[in-house]
């Protein structure tokens, strides 16, 4: 089926198989930040924004993105670098494999929730698994990042 979509604001038109998952399509276009970390829709590593909402690209049919806008980490470099800096300062990560999906969802959370508390942060990021850490470093990093953003906005 011929589809027309925008990835990081760039327009694409392609003939895609009806059962091709968005994750595989995005990788075939060179967006390698999008990774598969599981076969069971559990890890959140494949998170992209579809019309602004965080979704699992591993479980979304590409045809369903027809006419829509997708954002991947490649298109959100400024925010990604900033959040990444806070993560590094907290020594939050080890292997880093979970990082792109995690940062995508932090960005989605920041856009959706106003001043989230610890409980809300945990709930929002529940679908992002990290097999190396205990999430404490990430939590500290996010809190500091959100506080810094708030300060910057004032």
């Amino acid at each position: 089926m011929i589809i027309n979509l925008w990835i990081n604001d760039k327009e694409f038109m392609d003939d895609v198989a009806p059962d091709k998952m968005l994750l595989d399509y995005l990788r075939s276009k060179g967006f390698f930040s999008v990774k598969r970390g599981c076969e069971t829709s559990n890890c959140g590593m494949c998170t992209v924004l579809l019309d602004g909402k965080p979704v699992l690209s591993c479980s979304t049919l590409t045809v369903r993105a027809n006419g829509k806008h997708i954002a991947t980490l490649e298109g959100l470099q400024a925010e990604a670098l900033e959040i990444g800096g806070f993560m590094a300062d907290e020594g939050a990560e080890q292997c880093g494999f979970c990082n792109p999906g995690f940062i995508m969802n932090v960005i989605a959370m920041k856009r959706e929730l106003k001043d989230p508390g610890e409980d809300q942060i945990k709930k929002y990021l529940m679908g992002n698994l990290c097999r190396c850490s205990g999430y404490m470093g990430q939590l500290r990093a996010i809190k500091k990042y959100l506080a810094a953003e708030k300060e910057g906005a004032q």
Partner: protein
Amino acid sequence: MFTINQYVLAESLEQAYALNQSRINVILGGTLWLKMGRKKFNKAIDLSALGLDTIEEDEDQFKIGCMCTLRQVETHQGLDQHFDGVVAKALESIVGVQLRNGATVGGTLYSRFGFSDVLTVLMALDASVERYKGGIVSLADYAAMRPDNDILVRVLIKKDPRRASYSCFRKSAGDFPVLNCAVSKLEDQWAVVIGARPGRARRIMFTVAGTPSEENIQSIVETVRGSIPFGTNLLGSAAYRRILAEVLLRRNIEAILMGGAQ
């Protein structure tokens, strides 16, 4: 992974229904669950263009289109102001925001998963489902039916002044529930629903005039433990679930007596 030969963006429910009569065709919900299987389908029927992705609210009820995502339901302000916010409470433990932004109400209820948190909470609210050919039926009856080739079009929730509470037990956040329980109270009618038994949710109704005494509560607990079948699977044994049932049930009853939710 499942495979599809052809994708059809349905132009009407009639067309979708006609296509769905063939066993080799399939309706697409959010495809989260379909993806876990390996079935080969001919035509995949997408209901996305039929305006079924909205929640309508009027004076009497909520009408939730089958293509609404679980996240839409969870974050709906009107729903949050009813039933002590129990719907959001039940949905927020399911995997993660990203999955709930994909998983649909139609795919969820049609599948009648034993572990479903959604089925459990909506049965306690006495919800109904509207099917394209089969008309409206209570969700409790629908849950007990075998999946057929009809289309689940909407879920209907009456706006009654019901109090409600939900609790579940999970080994870790986002995992499947070992057991879940929802209780609601409308005047002297108490509805107790237990799901993830691990079989499909079951509901028992009780009539208790006024505030239940400890004896009333004990008798509800005994009836539930005695008449709802519990089973064993990898997450827990029947005996363990029977113990959990009492804990979750009592928590919910207490929460309702204290003013709802959990």
